């Protein structure tokens, strides 16, 4: 095949190069027609399920009603965005979103690193494997199941109230899920319970890649266990930590929707309405389609900007970046 193409290209004649190129492209496409169909099916799926909704986001600039098509809806400029910035719910929604995310970042981000570091120091391989297996398990439970477990534990007659009352720490049972002030704590704790082991996998893989020679050298120099963990292992996984930190920072507006949707209720609403819930509530429940889309669009744009900023900062400081 290729020998044939070569012969064609070197034939003398007018414009033979251009037509030859076109013909080769056509030939190549024909010779890979199965491959092209396989690839284009995927591209078609992405156009339908990713790009059409992206186009549909223009309803944020329109006053869309469900009975008419997107194209028919009248343009309203930035009215929906203005409405959001003037909405009295805005400060609370932003406060809840950032508050929960920041606590998750400050507590939830370092814990898997610590867990991986200590797990790696276990001497018994069998114990290490067993701890790993057990710690990954909650990741595979759905938030609905976990919501059910939490509701049982935190109920008036639940185990938490039982213990606290037995210890005389409280007199009356507390309805934890009905009180806004406990909501953030429940969200952060249950998230750590579910994802601690799973988030540690990547760090464990990175730790396995740290050269044993470095540890040996440090031991000969008289470094103890903590010193080696701090001065050898931790710097060895710095680039992994950086990349995951970039992702965590750029996802700061992403609340765990599945989790909050299960645990929220009308009583804890003042602490549980985050941007994702607000988009769902205004759009699906209250049918304010254009408004909800505008809020979602603001969120997507800020998230993208945050990703780019975090990426370039880490490139400058650390020489590590996503792209």
């Amino acid at each position: 095949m290729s020998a044939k193409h070569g012969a064609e290209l070197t034939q003398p004649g007018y414009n033979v190069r251009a037509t030859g190129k076109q013909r080769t492209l056509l030939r190549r496409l024909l010779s890979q027609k199965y491959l092209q169909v396989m690839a284009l099916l995927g591209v078609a799926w992405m156009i339908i399920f990713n790009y059409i909704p992206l186009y549909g986001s223009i309803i944020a600039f329109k006053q869309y009603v469900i009975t008419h098509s997107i194209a028919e809806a009248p343009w309203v400029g930035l009215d929906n965005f203005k409405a959001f910035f003037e909405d009295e719910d805005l400060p609370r929604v932003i406060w809840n979103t950032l508050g929960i995310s920041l606590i998750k970042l400050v507590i939830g981000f370092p814990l898997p690193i610590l867990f991986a570091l200590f797990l790696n120091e276990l001497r018994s391989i069998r114990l290490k494997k067993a701890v790993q297996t057990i710690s990954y398990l909650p990741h595979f439970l759905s938030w609905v199941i976990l919501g059910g477990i939490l509701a049982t534990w935190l109920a008036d007659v639940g185990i938490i109230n039982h213990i606290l009352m037995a210890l005389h720490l409280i007199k009356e049972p507390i309805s934890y899920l009905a009180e806004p002030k406990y909501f953030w704590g429940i969200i952060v704790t249950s998230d750590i319970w579910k994802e601690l082991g799973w988030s540690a996998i990547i760090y464990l893989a990175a730790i396995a890649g740290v050269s044993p020679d470095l540890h040996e050298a440090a031991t000969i120099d008289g470094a103890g266990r903590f010193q080696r963990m701090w001065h050898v292992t931790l710097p060895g996984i710095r680039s992994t930590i950086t990349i995951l930190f970039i992702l965590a920072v750029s996802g700061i507006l992403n609340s765990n929707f599945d989790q909050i949707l299960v645990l929220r209720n009308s009583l804890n609403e003042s602490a549980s309405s985050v941007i994702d819930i607000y988009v769902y509530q205004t759009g699906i429940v209250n049918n304010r389609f254009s408004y909800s889309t505008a809020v979602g669009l603001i969120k997507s744009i800020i998230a993208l900007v945050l990703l780019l900023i975090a990426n370039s900062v880490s490139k400058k400081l650390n020489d590590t970046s996503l792209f």
Partner: protein
Amino acid sequence: MLNLKRRTAGDAMFDAFNVLIMLAICFITLYPIWFVLVNSFNEGQDAMRGGIYWWPRIFSLESYQAVFRSSGIMTAMGVTIAKTLLGTIVHVFFTAMVAYAFSRRELVGQKLYILIGTITMLFPSTLIPYYLLIRDLHLLDNFLVYIIPAMFSFFDLIILMTFFREIPDGLEEAAKIDGANDLSIFVRVIIPVSMPVIATIALFHGVYQWNDYFTGMIYINNMDLQPIQTYLYRIVAQSSSNQMASAMPGGISKNVTSQSIKLATMVVTTAPIVLAYPFLQKYFVKGLMIGSIKG
């Protein structure tokens, strides 16, 4: 000498402390699951009094009998099993097929196709335009809403593509000389040698299909099409388990309460994952490594 001895004593202390912490973490992880299990096997009325922490006080299978006799729960379970099996097969086959095409260097337009995919990862679509698309595709109240919108993932494609690129070209060349086209090379040569990564993707997607409650909640109104997780969500989040107990078929003992049925349903829903989990563990760890090396 003395110095060295002291260090080993410190080492031993460290090790003992470390083992204790790890055991504590295991306990905190497992106990809430155990708590649900023993309470679900206790007689419902008695369990209401609380205090069942380690072992059932009055052992009873009545809650489970009620669960398996409830046609609503069984229908939802059937939907979940169907969507998990079908959804996983379609997702893995379709995503791997596209990934294989994208992975071939000679593919005309390869760079453009990958760019189209990368953009989708930077601009996630918002809820309402997506909902309108699902409506326009007539997928509302349609079983296929579990399958078609979930049949492809560009993230999974990257993992699969990374793996496919490592496959020696010789395998494909041999098949090509035999006159096989690219699709049959993919099915007969590529899939069999890629089983580790395919098993990983299948496991992740299977767990997603099994656990997802949002799709059934937002796009499905027909109760006969809702999966078990959506069914449970309605009980857990909307505390409608009283209606659930009253909707139970007759002839169920008074010992069963809405709470005990809820716990038994949770156990039945989670059991397949927990039982399959130890056997599947080696796959997902390996697969996550492949993903993390690239990502």
